[in-house]
């Protein structure tokens, strides 16, 4: 199996709270935010993984990535042509109302109305999808 997939699985299955605590460098507020965000990410787990493509594309390397650009993933035309680059602001708008923000998207999911849950999730995504953690260069 590819290392990206393994790393995604590690993040998904085991020790994530521990990893988050380490990443927070002893800052309890930050650790709590990452933990809460990881829990919100459970809502994505029917369709996504960090390290490999599923119903939705992998999230590894998400920040700074052009929407619809994971090679080989069968995106909708709507996503491919959206012109979005993923970052905290575009993710906040998309995750509030995916079909509203990208009409015609295959991510047919109503979104996360609570601003706090979204910001926690985006903090977790920024952490967990960093290529140094989930990409080919990440430690196994």
């Amino acid at each position, binding site marked *: 199996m590819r290392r990206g997939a393994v790393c995604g699985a590690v993040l998904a299955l085991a020790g994530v709270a521990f990893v988050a605590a380490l990443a927070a460098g002893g800052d309890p507020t930050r650790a709590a935010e990452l933990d809460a965000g990881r829990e919100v990410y459970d809502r994505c787990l*029917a369709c996504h993984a960090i390290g490999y493509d599923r*119903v939705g594309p992998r999230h590894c390397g998400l920040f700074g990535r052009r929407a619809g650009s994971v090679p080989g993933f069968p995106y909708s035309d709507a996503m491919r042509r959206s012109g979005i680059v993923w970052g905290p602001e575009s993710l906040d708008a998309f995750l509030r109302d995916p079909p509203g923000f990208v009409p015609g998207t295959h991510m*047919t999911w109503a979104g996360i109305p609570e601003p706090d849950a979204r910001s926690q999730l985006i903090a977790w995504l920024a952490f967990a999808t960093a290529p140094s953690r989930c990409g080919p260069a990440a430690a196994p």
Partner: protein
Amino acid sequence: MRKSPSVSPTAARVSRRSLLAGGGATLSAAAIGLLAGAPSLLGARAARASDPSADARILNTALAAEHEAVAAYQVGAESGLLAKDALDLAVQFQGHHKEHAELLARTVRALGGAPADPRSEYAFPVDQLQSQTDVLRFAAGLEKGAVSAYLGAVPLFGNRDLAKAAASILGDEAMHWSVLRYILGENPVPVAFVS
């Protein structure tokens, strides 16, 4: 009960036959909902209220997730890590996902769409599945995610019969999630509201 390492006596006592019979009854309710929804889309009332191709897109995304769940349970069933009771449950739950998939595909077709096919391969984290607990935890995560996925689909349907059918499937996935938590020794119903 909270720390039960394997399938609990309660779960095991219920025979597979009676479990299957109960499951069949639940799913035919979903079937009625879905099949009731599809033809009514052709009516004028529904045509005004909803866009069949948008509803078909929602069903197709759900179908892709159901295909993956079927494949995931296959990996679990073939892992050799599941004791008989757990294996029976996995096979039964897989059967539900197959029924969901068949129904969703049929409904997408009835709406004039092309149903999503299963992927030729799935990248499951097999390296991480070393024990029965790992397999059940993995399945529980997928089922929990499926509940969230259907919850997020329900309000998007233009056709309310399809929303009702999706909610019926949601209920089935929530039962899977709960039973898996129970046999993992976790609180089977940890929240009053799913999200």
